[in-house]
């Protein structure tokens, strides 16, 4: 298991809500939906766009640049122009603290 890195408190992020954190030099988009937290690289795989600046619809985040959609739970691309998943990271909540375990494989 990788290192758990604290990013924020549960109460820091509304539900539904999203925010970007610098986690060990990687920009991570953190989502809070229906009581659960999810984390993705804050990068659209189509054009490198900042995902968390897009609109969040349920479990789908829409890239603000060209409208590519990603499932925040898995990072899977759901529509063109993105065809590749963005990296998803494990999130662990302990009490009021939210931690991210970076996926170093991708």
């Amino acid at each position: 298991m990788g290192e758990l890195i604290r990013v924020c408190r549960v109460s820091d992020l509304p539900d539904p809500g999203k925010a970007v954190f610098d986690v060990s030099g990687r920009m991570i988009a953190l989502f809070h939906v229906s009581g659960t937290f999810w984390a993705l690289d804050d990068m659209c795989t189509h054009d490198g766009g900042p995902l968390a600046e897009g609109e969040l619809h349920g479990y789908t985040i829409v890239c603000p640049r060209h409208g590519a959609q990603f499932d925040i739970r898995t990072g899977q691309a759901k529509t063109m122009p993105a065809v590749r998943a963005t990296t998803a990271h494990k999130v662990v909540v302990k009490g009021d603290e939210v931690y991210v375990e970076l996926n170093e494989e991708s």
Partner: protein
Amino acid sequence: MPSLNLDTSFTDEGFHNVAFHRPQPNWLKELRQRAYRTFEDLPMPNRSMEEWRRTELRHFRLLQFQAWSPHPEQAPEIPSQLIPRLDTDGLIITLNGRKLESRLDPALGQQGVVLNCLEDSILNGWEELIRKHLFSILDWKYDKFAAMHAAFWTGGIFVYVPKDIRVNKPLLHVAALMPGQADVGHTLIILDEGAEATVVSETVSVDPSASSLYCGGIEIILRPGARLRYVNMQNWNQATFHFAHQKAVLAERASLEWTLGALGGRLAKVNQHLVLDGPESEGIVNGVMFAENRQHLAYHTLQHHRTPKTKSDLLYKGALQDQSHLVWRGMIRVEPGAVKADGYQRNDNLMLSETARTDCIPGLEILADDVRCTHGATAGRVDEEEIFYCQTRGLTRREATRLVVTGFFQQVLDRITIDSVREALTDIIQHRVREYRG
């Protein structure tokens, strides 16, 4: 390192301590002051700006770096690849942008050739020439990093070759950086009419993994008929941030062979600008890029044809492994009246992993008739059949990958006319290539 009770970071107080209150002529002080105001006024580049839309800067913390610090009492070991390989006529080593040591063949010194610290040169007899050319071609208002460089630069190097003088062996500049420090050095190279020289610049980190910052500028001025071979081998460690503005202006019949190695850095953002400012001037640009791990290397090139009968030929080749990201954005611009211009640009990329990414964006802006301008860009994977063939001849998969990658770079390596530089680049690339898993 001796402790220092001064703010030497990139702040207002740091600016006054580091750059403003130092021995220098008034014109330079005023230039710094204007640049500092621009640095303060300009926003940190962000992804809403076209040139930065593929380059992530949000994790960059400028204030963690020191713009100046005293040299340590004992100079650190400089892990240069080129010092042992290159037979030189002169050598200058800088640490954190400022001179550590230098030497030049006395016979060249007698002929008027200069290879020295830029700041020292201003104070020791070269002020008029330097004043005329310093930041004369580099636009220090271009972005926040350019302005920061113009405001904070210290040390630097100055190369001058007088009219019709030929320097036979390379002049080598090795720039070393220590952890947490910044190199904001400026390089000014002037070749007078008919002069010839080879200048090689190598960057190295003293520590293999600690973060540092380079925010530098290079100005190359070639007067009529001058010929320069210039090599810039960027080989910082993979924790260093590298921001560079580099520009060469060629007068009539001048020629430049400009080789660039983009190997190190956690994040590199470089603007390389070649201006063909006189008829029959010619520039050849060679780029060798290799990125691995999470390196992000972004190179923006401009071949600017301003006068008739000029020629530029750019070839950048890049290989990527792991989760690295290469950006190359090239432009050929031909001004009205620059007829018979011949411009070429090409960028090829070899993807050595599924998770690497490259963005290559060639461009043309042709405002004259009767020109010849072509461009191209490719990105592709290693051919599994080539790997398989090598394996059937007894090579391991890793050896096969190395062979294929070296073959990929051969086209650009063949264009580099300095043997030791070509060998160093080949060695570095071969050392870094891991097994290909397509």
